[in-house]
């Protein structure tokens, strides 16, 4: 394949679909699909998403060199599609999920085991041609590891802490992990089925509950996809308020994570202090916008809640206080040798893997992948805001903590700038009586990485199909790679430094 061929040119050889915004979507031939697969294997493209519809599969790609994004759709008249899993490992779990939900088989894929379907739903292929399930599920065959004195440690789905459920199967040699295999899907709620036929309002509520910690980012991605599909212009003030909400969410989560990582290294002092900072952000959020986790504040067309007049000084003071209180904690983190001993050189993710998987957020940026959806593809008002995207190369737990620390600083500065320049005016555009038909797509930077939302609105304005791809899809598999060779006791630390979403992944 000629490496200079751009994604849009390749897609242009297929049948371009009108009304798909803002990036092109084309129905492609199996030959073009194959070309794209080769491009994925050669890292010309980065995988952004892979999702199904009853009769076809959709592949979203990003070409880093040109900054192009596009979607290729392949019809599957025979109920199967050529698997991408061999050339593109990050596609493997997406393919397995697609097979579970739609019954479309990745042909000659590397892993034919089910993923989200644990054999406990009353039906099979709920989003495709659903069939009633008969008989109990087969036991799940875990991968094996062979060698002398290996033992297995099964953990979960119910974990010891206040965290989400998932199963981890460790194969260890003494203290050292030889293989970790994750099994997820426990919190699969069938969100994409619930979205089918939903009104925009109820769909927006659902989107904001895909992963509670990223409610703002999901609601924003969903709203942006709807707005793209129907060509709705969002008022200026709403754009800026959205960014304010998004940065508050980022702050709260990063404070929580920095504390929690240190706590998993048995340094609870840091946790105690960071939890206070997090709580202060949540309380300010509740005072200014009426919800601690800022759920349902963003809706298609704008935002639902305006910042009250007293909110401006309150948030200004919050930023000053947080900056002052966080500074000694950063020093504490930096100067505590016992803590550094745990985080430095633990759970190293090499930059090659981070790139191959298109790892977003702090996971990617701690391993040299300079990607932030606020910059590239970018969305307003970030194009008019000053901020840096911190990137480190060490790839260890320590680097992932530092990225968060730097991002806290950036978010604090962003909030200040937004408050200073917040335009006045309406906060929500009037939606047309019926939005649709149309297809829209959005990429939004949540605290943990880029969230992709793709949707098609029907002629009556209801959601016909909506797919939400959490950044965790491309981070969970890397956690398996990162833990190899580390000791079992460092797993919680590595896991927390990734802080992947179970709910966002399981959908």
């Amino acid at each position, binding site marked *: 394949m000629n490496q200079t061929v751009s994604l849009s040119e390749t897609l242009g050889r297929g049948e371009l679909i009108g009304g798909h915004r803002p990036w092109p979507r084309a129905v492609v031939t199996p030959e073009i699909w194959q070309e794209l697969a080769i491009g994925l294997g050669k890292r010309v493209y980065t995988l952004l998403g892979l999702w199904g519809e009853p009769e076809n599969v959709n592949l979203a790609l990003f070409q880093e060199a040109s900054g192009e994004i596009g979607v290729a759709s392949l019809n599957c008249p025979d109920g199967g599609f050529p698997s991408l899993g061999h050339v593109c490992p990050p596609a493997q779990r997406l393919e397995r999920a697609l097979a579970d939900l739609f019954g479309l088989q990745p042909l000659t894929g590397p892993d034919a085991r089910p993923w989200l379907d*644990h054999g*406990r*739903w*009353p*039906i099979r292929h*709920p989003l495709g041609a659903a069939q009633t399930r008969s008989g109990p599920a087969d036991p799940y065959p875990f991968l094996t590891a062979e060698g002398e004195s290996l033992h297995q440690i099964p953990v979960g*789905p*119910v974990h*010891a*802490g*206040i*965290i*989400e*459920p998932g199963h981890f199967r460790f194969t260890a040699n003494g203290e050292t992990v030889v293989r970790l295999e994750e099994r997820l*899907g*426990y*919190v*699969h*709620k*069938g*969100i994409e*089925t*619930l979205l089918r036929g939903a009104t925009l309002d*109820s769909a927006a*509520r*659902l989107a904001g*509950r*895909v*992963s*509670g*910690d990223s*409610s703002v980012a999901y609601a924003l991605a969903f709203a942006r996809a709807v707005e793209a599909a129907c060509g709705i212009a969002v008022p200026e003030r709403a754009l800026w308020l959205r960014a304010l909400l998004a940065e508050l969410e980022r702050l709260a989560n990063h404070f*929580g994570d920095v504390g929690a990582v240190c706590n998993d290294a048995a340094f609870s*002092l840091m946790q*105690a*202090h960071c*939890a*206070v900072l*997090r*709580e202060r952000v*949540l309380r300010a959020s*509740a005072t200014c916008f009426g919800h*601690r*986790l800022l*759920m349902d504040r963003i809706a298609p067309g704008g935002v639902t809640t305006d910042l009250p007049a007293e909110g401006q000084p309150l948030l200004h003071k919050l930023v000053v206080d947080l900056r002052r209180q966080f500074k*000694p*904690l950063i020093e*504490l983190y930096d*100067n*505590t040798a016992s803590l550094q001993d745990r985080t430095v050189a633990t759970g190293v993710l090499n930059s090659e893997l981070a790139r191959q998987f298109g790892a977003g957020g702090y996971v990617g940026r701690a391993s040299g992948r300079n990607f932030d959806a606020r910059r590239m593809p970018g969305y307003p008002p970030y194009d008019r805001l000053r901020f840096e995207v911190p990137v480190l190369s060490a790839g260890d737990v320590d680097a992932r903590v530092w990225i968060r620390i730097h991002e806290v600083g950036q978010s604090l500065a962003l909030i200040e700038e937004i408050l200073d320049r917040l335009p006045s005016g309406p906060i929500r555009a009037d939606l047309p009586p019926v939005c649709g038909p149309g297809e829209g797509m959005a990429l939004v930077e949540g605290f943990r990485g880029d969230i992709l939302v793709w949707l098609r609105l029907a002629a009556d304005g209801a959601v016909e199909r909506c797919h939400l791809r959490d950044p965790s899809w491309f981070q969970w598999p890397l956690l398996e790679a990162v833990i190899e060779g580390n000791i079992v006791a460092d797993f919680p630390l590595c896991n927390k430094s990734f802080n992947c*979403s*179970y*709910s966002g992944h399981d959908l």
Partner: protein
Amino acid sequence: MRKLLFQNLLRRTLTQAAPQPSQTALAELGERLKVTTRRRLGRSLSIREVDAGSCNGCELEIHALNNAYYDVERFGIRFVASPRHADVLLVTGPVTANMREALQRTYNATPDPKWVVAVGDCGRDGGVFCGSYACVGGVGEVIPVDLHIDGCPPTPEQLLEGLLALLAMQ
């Protein structure tokens, strides 16, 4: 570190006054007690949190109970790592089909006397996820529930009011 610790000694504590136990929670628990007479749990509660399918929003607020503002430990309420050490199961989420058995087994592993608190709108009846093939419904569909704490998610304050009602019943 010494400096930080020293400053903490001089600073006012952040912990806020305890809220009153929730009246609705007391009423619900009272109803329940009429039906089943239970042994008292003592003056402290060990809680095992179980996420049975939540969006993780409820977990975030349950976590917040441990921060310096709410400081649940002052009431003798502790989060424990195993159901075998627990008096109370604090269950979140619509119960997913994939978590049903795990929830049931966690319940079975919890020694009597035990209480089950269903957290969040999802814990009551499945909330926004109600009606999906992958959700069984509220926690009460799978194990007997003694108390519901509503909200999406309930605030730490609401959680605390509910838990204090549980302590007050004893």
